[in-house]
């Protein structure tokens, strides 16, 4: 578990302050916001945060609400049966009345109902459980929820992004060249994480 509060406390010295409370150009809230942005950016850049969620689906319901923080679907199954991805034109070509068809579920599509839900084809006639494997970003980071379940190197990523954003900020303690240096460190970590865990969105 990465302790974001520990990272922020330790960054006070790198930001020329004795403690977080004595930071002059930034507030603790801003540092947490940048940590949160770092996690969300990383979730888009690399396939680091992958979860498996079980979602109950009722008979005659063909819509699967996606969990909060969902960034990309990897795999969907219903009660152990694999559902293949399909787009709307494929479903239309397969079955002209696909929207009303009921029976054995074999496909899912992300083309309907916007970005926050999936739809299955055919509409199931019995209750079941969808197992969704997806890329997600974790819950928001803040002073009240300062821990991130992630391996230790993710802590380095947060540290670099916070320093890059802090030093980029216009003001007396602005150091744009140092910010650019930390951005380059972030790019290195992006590349390494993509090599280890695959691409993101």
């Amino acid at each position, binding site marked *: 578990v990465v302790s974001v509060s520990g990272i922020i406390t330790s960054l006070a010295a790198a930001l020329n302050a004795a403690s977080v409370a004595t930071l002059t150009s930034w507030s603790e809230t801003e540092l947490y916001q940048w940590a949160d942005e770092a996690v969300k950016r990383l979730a888009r850049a690399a396939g680091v945060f992958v979860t498996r969620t079980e979602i109950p689906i009722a008979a005659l319901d063909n819509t699967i609400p996606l969990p909060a923080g969902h960034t990309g679907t990897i795999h969907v199954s219903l009660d152990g049966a*694999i559902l293949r991805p399909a787009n709307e034109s494929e479903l239309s070509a397969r079955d002209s009345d696909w929207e009303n068809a009921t029976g054995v579920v074999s496909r899912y599509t992300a083309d309907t109902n916007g970005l926050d839900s999936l739809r299955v084809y055919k509409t199931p006639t019995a209750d079941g459980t969808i197992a969704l494997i997806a890329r997600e970003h974790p819950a928001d980071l803040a002073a009240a929820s300062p821990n991130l379940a992630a391996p230790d190197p993710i802590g380095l990523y947060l540290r670099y992004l916070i320093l890059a954003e802090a030093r980029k900020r216009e003001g007396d303690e602005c150091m744009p*060249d140092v910010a650019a240096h930390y951005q380059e460190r972030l790019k290195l970590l992006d590349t390494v994480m993509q090599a280890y865990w695959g691409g993101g969105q």
Partner: protein
Amino acid sequence: MQFSELQSRTLQRLDEDPTGAVVGYYTAQEVKDALNDAQLLFCFLSLCLETSALFRLETGVNFYPLLSPLPDFMLPLRVNLATTAGSAARHNDPRSNDPLFNDETAILSGSGGRLRPVRLADLDARDANWLTKRETPERYGCLGFDLCYVSPAPDVEGYQALITYARSPSVMVGDDDAPEIPENYHAALIDYAVPTLRTKEGAGELSKELDTLRRYLGACGELAGYVRTRSLALRYDKLPFEIERYDASRLLQIRKDLPPWRKEVPSWSQSPAS
């Protein structure tokens, strides 16, 4: 090299009191943090630390979280099927009486002690019912840092996976702690810590230390090369990042289009090209 000596040498390079008795521009804690970060990044880039742990496989379960049972987990390197005794399954497997049974044949035949890596898409393509199949596990895969899957799911109790994985180093706290990376690379940690600490002084000071950061990345690449060769020989499933192929030129120089360079050499002061 002990942690205290690393701190002392770092402070010396920063022109501070090496004993730490007189607190100057850098605090003892930020030096410690920088050295710990140096070791963490070193291990992440080179995958030089590995360990093995037993992982219980449940009957009928395909998916497992990894980070909660293995908090120092970074990447899987190899997974073997193990018995409850903790030894690789092939040692207790009846097939081990067969003189031809070894790792090589196991991998070729697809049924043996070692679980081979596989993607979900490949499992779907091979067998649409793999999620409901119950047999001796043969394949495994990982998604992200936390989600691991095996296929088929175990059919009986008692299976365990012996997972060899690249791990994070322990945080150095006490003065007599020592880095876990090979001893001949301990000095490389100072090469990371000094430029990192210098960043709070601005680009002028940082630029003087970028060569040491280059040396640090060189040391990472050198050890990663050794680990890669070894991993290939051991047929590990993940190899270290090829840092020598990464274009670090922008990381190792200060951008000339940003202050203070821009102030020192303004474009209008340069003589026009003849």
